[in-house]
């Protein structure tokens, strides 16, 4: 589907995961294809590699030093599709991501639902570095995330240039942390005053960083905040305070501020950061502050970041290279025979976007409907019903998509209705046993309980079908009551009588049969009269 070169012999490798998300400590991964492409906007966007790997457990929450994982995803095979860095802009990126999703779904082999297709976004701009953004759950986030990451990298490059202009060198950074607790002996700053007994206040100099910490690097996020986020993730501290901030916000007085500056022997262009925590944690936090600040000299750092809903991202971990891979000794290599590849190639579906157009024309329904049917996995069902029961495709598609959706909105459990039952409903419809108007009511009944059959639902609704004999009996009774009217009106009596009969048997028997029987009976009566 991706036009990739299939690897002849697959070798399973391990990638160590030591954060606890994979209990055995490694994730198995293997490359299955290279050098593929996706056609888009009349050109080809390269697919560098396609891999199969095991999913990891997902972290649910953290409590102090305990991490809780949910293992429902653990070990589930996942396909990783890595595109080549050939995508021109965030909009195209969205389209590529969308098409990858469509392609994967078209195989019928991948699971659907939120989180089953996730995007890791890699952004690198000139002068920047490769930054991986993980956990992109919705395609719509992509353009914004990409844009904000570009902004971030540009801002970081700008900070780097300013630092270089100010003449900052790596050697200017020192891990000479000062305990400034004394300065805050009678502070009004609540965070500092209410700290625990074993917690100290540590400060460090950030050479010539004045003004840079408050620089916005992503919408609503300063460089200082970025440093704080990293420290929070690594040490678990609540954050840092730095001299570019409005210190009165913390109730830190000008007096306290200048005392810190004196103690750290700061020049006008220097900035400082303070952290609050027990000695070990505070020290570790400041080490990270210094390291991150020093990293600003290089501009963008290679790292993995977590996507946030607002289009920004936060630090997750440093980015590892491919050098983490080593062979899995438990699985022998697997040879993929050419014959097998050829046989599978023959069975592959066409491009979904081509199929979409073709099917829309064939069934004379809107392309969006086809797309929706494909995305929700109902295409096969749709075609089955239309082909088998010769029902108007529009009725089928409206039922499958819109009726079902509105039922869901009304709180019906549509997942109780199996595909088999949906087929049955249309079968009954095609046989004239139910009227098209009854379909929604029947689906409602079916949604109420997974165990009832379509016939049960009909009974429940009083829509049970009736036999021709029963119909004849009903018609006979009604005709008997209206005998005078019929004799008076002659042939013209048919229409009003048909209406009356249908009122009684609607949904229970095909209207055509009713008309036939009714006509016969009226003729008989009129003949008798003569």
């Amino acid at each position, binding site marked *: 589907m991706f036009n990739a070169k299939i*690897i002849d*012999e697959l*070798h399973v490798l391990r990638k160590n995961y030591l954060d606890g998300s994979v209990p055995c400590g490694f994730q198995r991964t293997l490359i299955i294809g290279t*050098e593929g492409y996706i056609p888009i906007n009349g050109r080809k966007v390269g697919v560098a590699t396609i*891999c199969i790997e095991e999913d990891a457990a997902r972290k649910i929450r953290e409590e102090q030093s305990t991490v809780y994982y949910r293992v429902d995803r653990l070990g589930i095979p996942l396909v990783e599709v890595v595109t080549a860095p050939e995508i021109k802009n965030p909009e195209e990126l969205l389209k590529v991501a969308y098409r990858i999703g469509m392609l994967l779904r078209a195989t019928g082999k991948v699971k659907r639902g939120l989180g089953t297709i996730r995007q890791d976004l890699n952004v690198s701009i000139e002068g920047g570095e490769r930054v991986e953004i993980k956990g992109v759950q919705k395609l719509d986030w992509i353009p914004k995330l990409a844009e904000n990451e570009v902004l971030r990298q540009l801002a970081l490059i700008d900070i780097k240039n300013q630092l270089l202009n100010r003449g900052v060198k790596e050697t200017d950074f020192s891990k000479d942390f000062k305990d400034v607790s004394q300065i805050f002996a009678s502070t009004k700053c609540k965070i500092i005053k209410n700290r625990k007994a074993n917690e100290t206040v540590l400060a460090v100099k950030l050479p010539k960083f004045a003004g840079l910490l408050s620089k916005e690097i992503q919408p609503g996020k300063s460089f200082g905040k970025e440093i704080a986020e990293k420290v929070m993730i690594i040490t678990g501290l609540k954050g840092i305070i730095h001299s570019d901030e409005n210190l009165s916000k913390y109730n830190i007085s000008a007096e306290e501020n200048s005392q810190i500056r004196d103690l750290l022997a700061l020049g006008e262009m220097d900035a400082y950061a303070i952290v609050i925590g027990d000695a070990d944690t505070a020290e570790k936090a400041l080490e990270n502050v210094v390291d991150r600040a020093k990293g600003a000299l290089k501009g963008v750092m290679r790292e993995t970041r977590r996507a946030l809903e607002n289009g920004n991202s936060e630090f997750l971990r440093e980015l590892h290279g*491919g050098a983490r*891979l080593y062979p899995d*000794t438990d699985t022998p290599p697997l*040879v993929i025979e050419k014959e097998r590849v050829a046989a599978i190639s023959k069975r592959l579906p066409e491009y979904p976007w081509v199929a979409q157009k073709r099917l829309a024309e064939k069934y004379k329904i809107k392309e969006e409907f086809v797309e929706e049917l494909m995305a929700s996995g109902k295409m096969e069902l749709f075609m089955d019903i239309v082909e088998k029961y010769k029902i108007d495709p529009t009725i089928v598609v409206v039922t499958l998509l819109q009726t079902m959706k509105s039922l869901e909105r009304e709180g019906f459990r549509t997942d109780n209705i199996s595909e088999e039952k949906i087929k049955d409903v249309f079968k009954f419809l095609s046989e004239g046993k139910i009227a098209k108007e009854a379909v929604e009511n029947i689906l409602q009944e079916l949604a109420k309980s997974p165990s009832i059959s379509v016939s049960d639902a009909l009974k429940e609704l009083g829509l049970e079908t009736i036999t021709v004999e029963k119909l004849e009996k009903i018609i006979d009774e009604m005709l008997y009551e209206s005998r005078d009217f019929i004799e008076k009106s002659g042939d013209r009596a048919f229409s009003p009588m048909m209406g009356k009969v249908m009122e009684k048997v609607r949904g229970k028997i095909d209207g055509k049969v009713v008309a036939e029987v009714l006509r016969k009976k009226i003729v008989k009566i009129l003949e008798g009269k003569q």
Partner: protein
Amino acid sequence: MTVKEELQGYWGFVRKKLETAKVRIWSEIEVITPEATYRGILLPRSDMGDDKHLVLKLDTGYNIGVRVTEDTKIKELGYKPGLYAIPEIQVEFDPKKPKVSLIGTGGTVASRLDYRTGAVIPAFTPQELFSAVPELAEICNLKTKLLFEIFSEDMTPNNWIKIAETVAEEINSGADGVIIPHGTDTMHFTSSALSFMLNDLPVPVVLVGSQRSSDRPSSDAAINLISAARVAAFSDIAEVVVCMHGSSSDDYNLIHRGTRVRKMHTSRRDAFRTIADIPIGLVKDNEIKIIRNDYRKRVKKGEVKLDTQLDPRVALIYTYPGMDGDIIHKLIDLKYHGIVLAGTGLGHCPKTIIEPLKRAVEEDIPVAMTSQCLFGFVGMNVYERGRDLLKIGVIPCKNMLPETAYVKLIYVLGHTKNMKEIYEQMTTNLCGEITDREPYRAYQIFQVGAENF
């Protein structure tokens, strides 16, 4: 080295192609097939592989196998030899630290990964071990000796003798303790054998292994090795013991008596359990904690009395419903010298094998009865079947484990063929293989951690 020798694992067609292209393992090469072009480092190939593919490590770190046909073109772009050695750490002899000898029997005790090639490099010499497991250097002065490299399932009584001789040699020339890394499958057979053969032990002899190979992050190898080194160097347990994980986590190791330990799980890290008894102690937070006191204590000066007279012609037979007597007859016909039965329940077997067992005893082939229940004593006076077996001369092995009884009969038969003496020896405790009683917690301990004792 010639090109030929450097194409490890390649044979047949692909080897010819590689030789013609003059490339070596670790060559950076370009492979052009009719379908695609790949660049990467040529990796060694598993001997089990076919002769149609070569293995490449790509830039991305992934390995792939590329099919080689007549049309494939291979070109060397560069060469950088693979790192197949562990950086060694030189440690000065420290007279204050105990001297521990490590006797290798096969398998990888510790290893390091080379990420560039993805190779797992085994560590064996003290320098390599100190590099792979630096904690060892803080515990003891280490001396290593590689006896053989075999899978533990291929161990034979002759291997046990060789190990026992080497252990005795090391101890009698001044070692303060011995560590024997060993495959886990039959570690409890070897520990039993050593228990019988090494008499008057003055220092600890510790068998150790790993349930997860050292190339996995979940490996128990390093902790087991460190704990074993601690027991060998510092404990006062002058017995043959097994030191393995006590729980599935990394929190403590148990010290099991060599004759009462058994591998009870195929894959868990805490597979080794003391059966129907309580472990001697545990190693937790770098401390040795002793649980019971009835063990042989370390002595300052003493020599091992080595006793390696064995007669390995013994069979260990599991009885089962539907068992036919012909197996026993066959063993007699094959001139086996002894039979150990792992019987059912209190020490029973189907009546179909009574006659053949009777024949065995009559032909002076001792038959020893243990229980496949593992826990509890055989009680052969309780039911008729047991009494019948006793009457024909089957030896009730009390609460000896089947594997231990097998090893012990080999040992006893090495010393006497007198049926009465054999009976005496088999029912008398020599080194903890038979206990007076089963402590009430001995059954629980099988399931529950011993750290609370």
